[in-house]
């Protein structure tokens, strides 16, 4: 195949990949949802989130289907996942607020660090950090090797390396946070206990939809923290929000 034919073929493949037809299961799930068959819609959205775990749309729509089925805890977990992938998704934030309000759950009070570094997802921070690192190093190396280059190249290099540092901090924040990931209570009547035993004294109630921070895992139990209180809850009662890989 000559180069004259190869380039258009490659462009066509790229265009198809970029502007290809959406997965038809989205339409089918939406039709089910519109007709009130939320369980069918949820089944399709479950498949879609497994196949496309990094699609905020799939998680968002799954959250809606779960909410319509009355599974508020799982719906809240789904919307939390959307916000981990796309932190600036206003729709997911609105649905999350709506569900929390409806369930009478306390509004989370994020720290300043969470607010600052939570504006972008971990992937976004990583992409910015790497791009700034490569470009900054290239600009700085070029300015060292070619002294006749304008001074702005050196300055741009330094600025990019600083940006890489900040973005690296954002990325690191997400990674560190993942050491103690968030978890959402998805079952009703869950209680946090003083020990990882079924007959241990209950410490506090963990209503469905409550967001907790997982401090430790011990067998089928998780040590969780909520508003400075710590307790043990069964693993099957929560959905842990793992950071995208």
């Amino acid at each position: 195949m000559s180069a004259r034919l190869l380039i258009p073929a490659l462009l066509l493949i790229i265009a198809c990949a970029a502007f290809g037809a959406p997965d038809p299961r989205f339409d089918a799930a939406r039709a089910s949802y519109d007709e009130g068959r939320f369980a069918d819609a949820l089944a399709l959205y479950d498949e879609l989130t497994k196949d496309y775990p990094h699609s905020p749309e799939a998680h968002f729509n799954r959250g809606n289907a779960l909410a319509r089925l009355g599974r508020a805890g799982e719906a809240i977990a789904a919307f939390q996942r959307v916000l981990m992938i796309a932190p600036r998704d206003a729709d997911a934030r609105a649905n999350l607020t709506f569900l929390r309000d409806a369930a009478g759950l306390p509004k989370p009070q994020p720290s300043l660090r969470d607010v600052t570094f939570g504006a972008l997802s971990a992937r976004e921070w990583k992409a910015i950090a790497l791009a700034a690192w490569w470009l900054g190093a290239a600009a700085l190396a070029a300015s060292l090797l070619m002294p006749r280059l304008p001074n702005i190249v050196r300055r741009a290099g330094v600025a990019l390396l600083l940006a890489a540092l900040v973005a690296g901090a954002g990325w690191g924040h997400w990674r560190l946070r993942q050491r103690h990931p968030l978890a959402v209570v998805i079952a009703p009547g869950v209680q946090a206990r003083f020990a990882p035993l079924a007959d241990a004294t209950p410490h506090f109630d963990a209503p469905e939809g409550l967001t907790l921070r997982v401090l430790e895992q011990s067998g089928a139990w998780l040590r969780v923290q909520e508003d400075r209180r710590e307790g043990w809850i069964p693993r099957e009662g929560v959905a842990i929000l793992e950071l995208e890989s």
Partner: protein
Amino acid sequence: MRTRRSNVIAALLALALTAARGAEVEMDIEPRVLRLGESAICRIVIKDAANAPQPRLPPLQGFEVSAAGTEQNIQIVNGRQSLFTAYRFQLTPIAAGDFKIGPFRYDLGDRVADIPAVEVRVLPMQGNGGESVQSMNELLFATLTSSRPKVYVQEVFDITLNVYAQPGLNLDRNISLLNFDTTGLALSGFEELASGREAIDGRVYDVRRFRARATALTSGAFTLNPRLRVNIIVPRSRGNRDPFFGDSFFDSFSLFGRVETRAHTLEARPLSLRVHDLPAEGRPSNFSGAVGRFSFDLSASPLQLRVGEPITMRYRIQGRGNIDTVRAPELALPDGFRAFEAQLVEQNAQSGLKVFEQVIIPRSATIKELPPVAFSWFDPEAERYETMVRGPYPLELAAGNAGPILQGVEAQPALERGPLGADLVYLKPAPRRLRAAAPASDIPPALHGLPALALLIAAVYARHRERLLRDPARAARLRAPRGAREGLARARALAHNVPEAAGALADALARFFGPLLGLPPGRVDAESVCSRLQQSGLDTTRIRELRSLFDFCERMRYAGPAAPATEEDRTALARHLERAPDLLRACKRAVR
């Protein structure tokens, strides 16, 4: 006899002078005989006591006392300087009789001075009927009257202040109110009415009247007891003026020095008011606080219109009362009307008029009339509520056609609307591009170290370049092998021409040894080079070989191109070209 009388007078004067010199505080009152309506000036003069506190006169029976100023004078007699401070008080008699003012004790701070008493006689004033007036209250007094004996909350009524003065007493036009407590009332400013004369208890008085409009704000009992400041015009007394402490120079210019004014405080006879709450009995449901006597009129137009077109209602309320706070009557409209807020379009406080306009829009063709409109008020004189009703007015509405402002109810039925609330945001559309997994780390993590490596190399290179720039000799030394290689390559290329090849070889030697040994181009010869290399420890075999190379180059260059090269020369050239690189490397190693 005359001599004896003169001696007595001289002795009395000396005694008086001695007494005067010894006295440090003096009090004098002028005149000591006066009539009611006039006033006297009391002067307390302190000599040579600049830091003495200001004297105060206690309340005096039969007089009103007010401060009238302070003066200071310096007197120099025989070189001795004296400071005189005079405090002046105005004494206004309020009753006829003989009065003794003093004695007083005046504390100067470091000593106490005794001030002897002064007797003052106040003569009654001759009344206009020839009778004598013994008291100031008979001469001048003030009363306060209300236009309403019984007052209700929000009622507007008049309060009149009357100032009575006997014709013999001259008052100037200025009258001021002092600390008039009007708690529970809203009082407008006083306006003067026409003055006149009145006879009270057989005496004739000039009366000045001032009226203010009052609005009762709260219920309760109130007492109005204002104090007035009036100015009495009296003839100026000019006798016995002290050359230092008499009236000031400018006083003699007032009214050409013949009369002067004396301020007098007058307490009006108190007026007690009782303000009543509006009665709850008989209060109409549409009563909105109007108190007084009013008339109410209403006009509405147009009365023939289409559904959705506006009707302008014009309410005209006029009368006496609290018109300022009167509001438009409230409409009791049935379903099918839309009413806008009434707007005040005309107001005249003088005539007590208020005109409101209100737009209403019929929204149904089934409406047949404008409902009646009622306006209610409380009449404080009749002590009952009154209501005036206007309407109803028949309406002729053309149905069906949409009006310019609002659609008729029949023309467009209202949409069924559910209660407003919050809900989930609807589903998101399917994305155009989906990736089965997160984009793999496009670059292996180890490769992210490449920028750091490149930076390191670049930094090292930049440092090396910097050093070469700072050390040109070192740079030349580093360049020397390359120059030698180029020269040798040229010599090999010219091998068929032995003299030219020898020249290129000599050039290569100069380009190599010049920078390497720091020799100028003209000094690169066998002797210089060999001696330096010998010092550097190059072995003798190499030295000999190098000397042989220099000699060959020298010989061939000076033989010139015309001289034919022998086979032996060609062989020597070939040998030198072959061995030169190795020889030069050895030389470089020796120098390093």
